């Protein structure tokens, strides 16, 4: 697909931007099985393959379980590997997600967030990637098309870093970000190539001079040591995300950190929220600021590993906050982001009050008025110190 640029900017959907980033990264292998709403990524990328614009070997497989299995095989062989999926597709990959991370294979996956069945639904929520949050994959969340494009390029560097060597997934909101056109700044092909560099695997199954065994059995005598190594690598990824985000900023003018804060410095009430809904929340923040209300926002970008200390530091002066989840843990105790943010704050001497609100499941719209209503609750809690409703569903 030809992309028309005006002054380095192009109007692209999230899917087109991800496919374009994949073209620029030019991975060795891409096994994929298209699924709504990420279909456009595989569709457009396969045109790049057919046109000879990339050297990638595209493997069309019979299911997402096979797609991830082929990713693992190709990565074990020493290839740079990328794929994309959504919802049921990610769910079908589940077993293999753990194999990829346990084998320390730096595969990069784009997940276009979509609700999991049942009832069947094709629209946005985060139940798919939240379900995979313990699978040992780095998770980067993206508010906009621009950020999704930038995150994918950075994800390659983060995953392949010698101190990390873990698979990474970049998450963006189904339809809202994947299908809406946004004017974004694209980076030069050569600059992307230079930024991601050449991939040099630690081991390769195809290196017959140095034969290795991968995926061997480990029992009571060593399994826990391998898991501890993996856990330590995941914790180290935090610093690498900071480093790569900073270098990206220096080179291309858009710096990234662990999370974004918006008018949070002197805020008494705050909302913590992922992905595209942060944009809507910022409009509500601006409206309330105009009325002199001290409100702000924190949008986590890195969710795995979870930057608990930095998030606690950023929220320590807030009196009350609501964590909005576009997924339910079905624990009877709020969503996953709520639980982790609340737990991170526990280390503080003086803790803000924290409430959980579940919103937007299955693509239900989250509007400025919804954010304003949440802020209303949070400002009341900030003023009185009293929580009436700890958790509830909104946007009903």
């Amino acid at each position: 697909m030809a992309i028309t640029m005006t002054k380095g900017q192009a109007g692209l959907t999230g899917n087109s931007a991800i496919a374009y980033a994949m073209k620029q990264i030019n991975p060795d292998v891409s096994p994929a099985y298209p699924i709504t709403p990420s279909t456009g990524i595989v569709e457009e990328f396969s045109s790049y393959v057919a046109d000879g614009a990339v050297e990638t070997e595209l493997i069309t497989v019979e299911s997402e379980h096979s797609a991830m299995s082929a990713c693992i095989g190709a990565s074990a062989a020493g290839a740079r590997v990328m794929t994309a999926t959504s919802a049921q597709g990610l769910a079908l990959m589940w077993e293999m997600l753990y194999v990829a991370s346990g084998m320390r294979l730096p595969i990069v996956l784009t997940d276009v967030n979509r609700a999991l069945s049942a009832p069947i639904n094709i629209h946005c929520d985060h139940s798919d990637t939240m379900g995979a949050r313990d699978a040992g994959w780095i998770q980067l969340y993206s508010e906009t098309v621009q950020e999704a494009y930038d995150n994918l390029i950075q994800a390659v560097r983060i995953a392949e870093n010698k101190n990390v060597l873990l698979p990474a997934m970049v998450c963006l909101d189904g339809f809202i970000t994947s299908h809406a056109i946004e004017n974004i700044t694209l980076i030069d092909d050569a600059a992307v190539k230079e930024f991601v560099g050449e991939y040099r695997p630690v081991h390769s199954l195809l290196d017959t001079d140095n034969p290795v065994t991968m995926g061997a059995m480990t029992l009571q005598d060593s399994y826990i040591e391998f898991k501890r190594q993996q856990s330590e690598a995941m914790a180290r990824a935090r610093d690498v995300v900071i480093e790569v985000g900073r270098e990206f900023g220096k080179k291309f003018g858009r710096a990234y950190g662990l999370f974004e804060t918006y008018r949070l410095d002197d805020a008494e009430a705050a909302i913590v929220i992922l992905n595209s809904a942060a944009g809507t929340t910022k409009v509500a923040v601006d409206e309330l600021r105009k009325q002199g209300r001290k409100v702000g926002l924190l949008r986590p970008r890195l969710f795995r590993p979870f930057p608990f200390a930095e998030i606690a530091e950023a929220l320590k002066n807030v009196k009350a906050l609501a964590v909005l989840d576009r997924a339910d843990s079905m624990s009877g105790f709020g969503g996953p982001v709520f639980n982790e943010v609340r737990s991170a704050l526990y280390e503080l001497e003086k803790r803000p009050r924290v409430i959980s609100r579940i919103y937007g499941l299955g693509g239900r719209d989250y509007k400025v008025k919804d954010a304003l209503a949440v802020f209303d609750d949070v400002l009341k809690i900030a003023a009185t110190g009293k929580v009436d409703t700890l958790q509830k569903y909104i946007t009903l």
Partner: protein
Amino acid sequence: MDERKEHPLGGVIPKGGTAHDYSTGGWRKLRPVLDRDKCTNCLICWVMCPDSAIITEDGKMVGFDMEHCKGCGICAVECPDKVKAIKMIEEAD
């Protein structure tokens, strides 16, 4: 103990042929038995055995490596129909 040497990244075993030092034949249900009189030393069993458990000497089939034979019976099936020099018997018998 150098933990990194002991636990290489991602559970990779950084050299080949290590199965030799590890007995994998402990959970066999059936065991192959060779009838030397029938065997023609065609070595089809040697080619087909998935665990390299057919022992040969001077190009001749001489028996099974019972530390690695898992009792799958592939050798007995693959031994040519006219020969059938391998029989699988119950390990418990």
